[in-house]
């Protein structure tokens, strides 16, 4: 029996739960409920309230990715550095939240940031005024960052860890002061990890749902929530068709961003998760 046969359970699974549904999505996206071919479904995007949600999704995902990079890179750099002996336990600490369900994590965050939550209780205790977090855009972005930060740290950490330390010494030797070592060598050489991290944060962030609904008290919906809403709650008779067209659009959006990032890291050195 050929080796490739060992993958048949997976292939079957994929066909049943990924390929076939995808074909249905495509079918619904381009047809009316009666089954006639149409492009009308895609025009729904033009509606201001839908377009606003898509733009908000992109905006929040970009904020989230940027913040993850800003927080994640120094963290990864620190973890991958020499002379730090507790790397393993810290990596575990960063991974720890990932072992928990996303919804549980988000509920935990709600408890912390709620108007009467832990944060505000602490603020009151030291005599400061309460602040409103839940329900703001900030809360949504924080929630996204909290959930996706490990996906930024890990690929960058992996690339930095693999980097030969003598390369850094070579840069110093050739005249780089500590700052230039980072800008001229460390960051350029860890670009594959950065690209991988951006991909792994941006894509789930742009399609995420539930996080924003929960942390904004249902006020701020993102693309994922919108698709959920169209399929499950809307009264539009075309809801399956419109929902499918939205899903397809998101898929194309993601494929485009992968294609773009692939250009930056053609060898897929950054761990290649996507």
């Amino acid at each position, binding site marked *: 029996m050929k080796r490739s046969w060992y993958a048949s359970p997976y292939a079957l699974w994929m066909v049943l739960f990924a390929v076939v549904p995808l074909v249905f999505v495509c079918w619904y996206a381009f047809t009316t409920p009666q089954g006639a071919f149409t492009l009308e479904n895609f025009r729904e995007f033009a509606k201001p309230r839908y377009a606003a949600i898509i733009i908000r999704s992109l905006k929040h995902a970009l904020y989230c990715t940027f913040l993850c990079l800003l927080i994640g890179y120094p963290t990864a750099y620190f973890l991958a550095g020499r002379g730090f002996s507790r790397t393993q336990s810290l990596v575990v600490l960063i991974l720890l939240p990932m072992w928990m369900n996303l919804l549980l994590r988000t509920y935990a965050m709600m408890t912390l940031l709620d108007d009467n939550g832990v944060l505000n209780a602490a603020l009151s205790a030291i005599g400061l005024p309460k602040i409103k977090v839940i329900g703001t855009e900030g809360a949504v972005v924080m929630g996204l960052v909290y959930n996706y930060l490990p996906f930024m740290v890990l690929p960058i950490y992996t690339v930095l860890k693999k980097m030969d330390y003598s390369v850094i010494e*070579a*840069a*110093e*030797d050739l005249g780089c*002061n500590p700052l230039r070592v980072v800008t*001229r060598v460390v960051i*350029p*050489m860890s670009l594959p990890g950065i690209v991988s991290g951006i991909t792994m944060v941006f894509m789930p962030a742009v399609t995420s749902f539930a996080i924003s609904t929960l942390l904004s008290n249902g006020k701020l919906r993102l693309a994922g929530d919108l698709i959920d809403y169209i399929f499950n709650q809307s009264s539009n008779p075309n809801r399956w068709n419109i929902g499918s067209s939205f899903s397809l659009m998101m898929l194309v959006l993601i494929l485009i961003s992968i294609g773009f990032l692939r250009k930056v890291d053609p060898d897929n050195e950054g761990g290649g998760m996507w």
Partner: protein
Amino acid sequence: MIDETRLIEIKGVSKSFGETQVLHDVNLYIRKREFVTLLGPSGCGKTTLLRILGGFEMPSTGEVLFEGKDMTGIPPYKRRINTVFQKYALFNHLNVYDNIAFGLNLKKPEQLGCQSRAEMKKEIMRRVTRMLKLVKMEGYEKRSINALSGGQQQRIAIARALVNEPEVLLLDEPLGALDLKLRKQMQLELKAMQQQLGITFIYVTHDQEEALTMSDTIVVINNGRIQQIGDPKGIYDEPKNAFVADFIGESNIIDGTMLEDDLVRFQDTEFQCVDEGFEKNEPVDVVIRPEDIMIVGEDVGMLTGVVESVIFKGVHYEMMIRSSDYQWKVQSTAMQPVGTRVGMTIVPYNIHIMHKMKEA
């Protein structure tokens, strides 16, 4: 060729990593345009010494003077020293040209004698092109580092360091990863480059042949201590102790007793030698090179023995000859079959007497 001025002086340098002391009171000076090799077995401290010179490690005690000025605490990027690293440490996000130009690109235009950025760009191109020519890699400017062979990467690493016109080039076993033929070729090329450019080279290796081929001065190091400093011929012909004798070339080292000046006894036989100044009946190490033992008829030899093994080594045969409690290593172009009883003679000039090594 070599300038007598002392470019670098290492004074009483010791280095410890935690509990382990890797360098013990190293004293050494290096002259301008000298090719110095730090030679010793792995773990002897030679690389640590090189890293101290490069500024990557600080000595625990002692000081390093560069043109008379203390270098302690000066970071690598402020030293007029460049390094060729053991694993090349090339920047694989840059192509060959940008790797070589890396150091020059960090400089200001006036440091390269230029008025403007544009002029500097031209100057850099001129220098990089000249370096590529020197290391025989013309036409490789746009290549990616990953597309080069080990030997080519080596050349780029050398060019990347030399293009900055350092006062001193440090080389940390740069030829270790190359095959024998390429290594020999690169040895000669490196030596030629050093002479052409007139730069001081400090070269670390564990390969004694490499050291003998290239160096003006060899510094033999063992267990963090300098064993001997000398020119290749001096070190080979007059090793100071049994360690040096054994490490530089092959040697028979046997216990002996110095009976009086110019007379030594080993293997219950008295030999004329040319060493003086030992105490009467002082126990000594007697060192004899395998090629200095002549095989003669059993009846005329100073020592007799039985051939126990023969290995063909290309130019000569290497025979192990048992004589009472010692197995002699003898090299000769004439082969004696295993089991033959032979005589051996050694001329006084080839018997080297050494004080017993104290604690190494």
